């Protein structure tokens, strides 16, 4: 198992964000976390990343207990909803950042970094834009730079927090299919948080639905489409899963 959560709880003051959540993601899987706002999905992601500290329970990444490790040591890649690109650096410098801040002993040479960044920009189809600044790019392009930047440090787990939430509908649809293709190529364990259940079902191998700080149900898009005992989930998933399961069948098989 690539990522395992065992009875993780987190409170913010009076508010319970995570209530004894247990959850596992397999090697190379792409799992989506769906749910309405306040359901705890972003908090779960941030706990896995080490950006929040859980109050109880354990997080294991590739078998190791992640507790003593900070976000920089867990070998995760994180992509934020609003890109969080370094605005004073070019696209190239953004992507190269993770490699340049490595301690001297582990730092690759300048030419190695250059080549790696070139490859990554080609992977996200932005090869010609290395010298641009983030303010000169569209939202979709910025998000792809953010992805390339996260992948540069060869993470074992890729965490995406509503990555397409700030983009308009058309770009969102394009990018989610693109993300699926990218995942198939790179095959990094990925957890995607989204409030859009259609997106979740279209892109992910498995979908976990969160509600009120807990995981209400996990399954493949097809399994979820077959219906659910939980009335909340029924209405939440109803349209989207059936449609997406069908769509997925057409695109990828």
């Amino acid at each position, binding site marked *: 198992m690539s990522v395992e959560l065992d009875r993780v709880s987190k409170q913010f003051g009076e508010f319970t964000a995570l209530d004894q959540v247990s959850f596992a993601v397999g090697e190379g899987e792409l799992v989506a976390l769906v749910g309405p706002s306040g359901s705890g999905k972003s908090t779960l992601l941030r706990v896995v990343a080490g950006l929040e500290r859980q109050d109880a329970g354990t997080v294991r990444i590739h078998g190791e207990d992640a507790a003593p490790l900070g976000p920089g040591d867990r070998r995760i890649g994180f992509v934020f909803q609003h890109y*969080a690109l370094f*605005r004073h650096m070019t696209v190239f410098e953004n992507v190269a950042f993770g490699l340049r801040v490595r301690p001297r002993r582990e730092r690759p040479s300048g030419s190695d970094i250059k080549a790696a960044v070139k490859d990554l920009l080609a992977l996200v189809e932005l090869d010609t834009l290395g010298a641009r600044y983030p303010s000169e790019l569209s939202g979709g392009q910025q998000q792809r730079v953010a992805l390339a930047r996260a992948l540069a440090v060869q993470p074992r787990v890729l965490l995406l927090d509503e990555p397409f939430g700030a983009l308009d509908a058309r770009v969102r649809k394009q990018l989610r299919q693109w993300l699926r293709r990218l995942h198939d190529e790179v095959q990094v364990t990925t957890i995607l948080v989204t409030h859009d259940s259609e997106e979740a079902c279209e892109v992910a191998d498995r979908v976990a639905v969160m509600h009120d700080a807990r995981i209400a149900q996990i399954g493949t898009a097809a399994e979820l489409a077959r219906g659910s005992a939980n009335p909340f989930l029924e209405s939440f998933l109803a349209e989207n899963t059936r449609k997406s399961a069908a769509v997925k069948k057409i695109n990828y098989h």
Partner: protein
Amino acid sequence: MSVLPARRVAPALPRVRSVLPGVRLTLGFTLAYLLVLVVIPLSTLFVRSARLGWTGFLEAATSDRAIAAYRLSVGASVTAALVNGVFGLLVAWVLTRYRFPGKSIADALVDLPFALPTAVAGVALTTLYAQNGLIGALLAPHGIKVAFTPLGITVALTFIGLPFVVRSVQPVLETLPKEIEEAAATLGADRWQTFRRVILPALTPALVAGVSLSFARAIGEYGSVVFISGNMPGFTEIAPLLIMSKLEQYDYGGATAIAVVMLLLSAVILIGAGLLQRRAAKRAA
């Protein structure tokens, strides 16, 4: 519906396109006020310099004593501004990011140089750093003299410019999105690397603005410096003091020449800083 009378625009005032009443009145008053209190007084400087003629002007403006004064003024002001740049950043950081007892008092105290009359600051600083003063006495055994030396002037100018950097940086620091620091952390940067490569560049425009404001304030400062400097020509005489000295001797021409040079110097440095700031801001936009 009645026919409204055509609006007549008074030819003497600039054309005013507005629905709201009182604009012409207020504009007239504003212009008159500025004319009488700002434009005319400042123009006397240039008229008077012109009267000196080129040779007269250059003679007064570039005498040895004057050059020493400019050098001291600029040197001390730049040093003070840079010290404030470093420590002002630190203070802004600590006030924005951390919680500690007495924080709101510290935050309010930062504005003291704005609120305290310069003469009061001047006598207080001199007493503090004189040989028998609280700090002067501590430094005297080590052979460090502060009062009546250029060092004392720099200390006074540091006091006077302190709020500018802090108040320039604070708002930017407060609204810096935390995702940027989180992104850097997930990419493996340690805290110092994150500060140096991610946070500091984002603060640079505000820092430059604050440092140049601090400098601009320092270079024209009189009240807090006149006591601690001792006014020794060629040694501790900054430009404003030299102007004052000339005035006391009724050498209006000489005073004006030096004033004009000072204004030009400040203008050049401020425009330079403004350009620097604009360039840094463009990147971090």
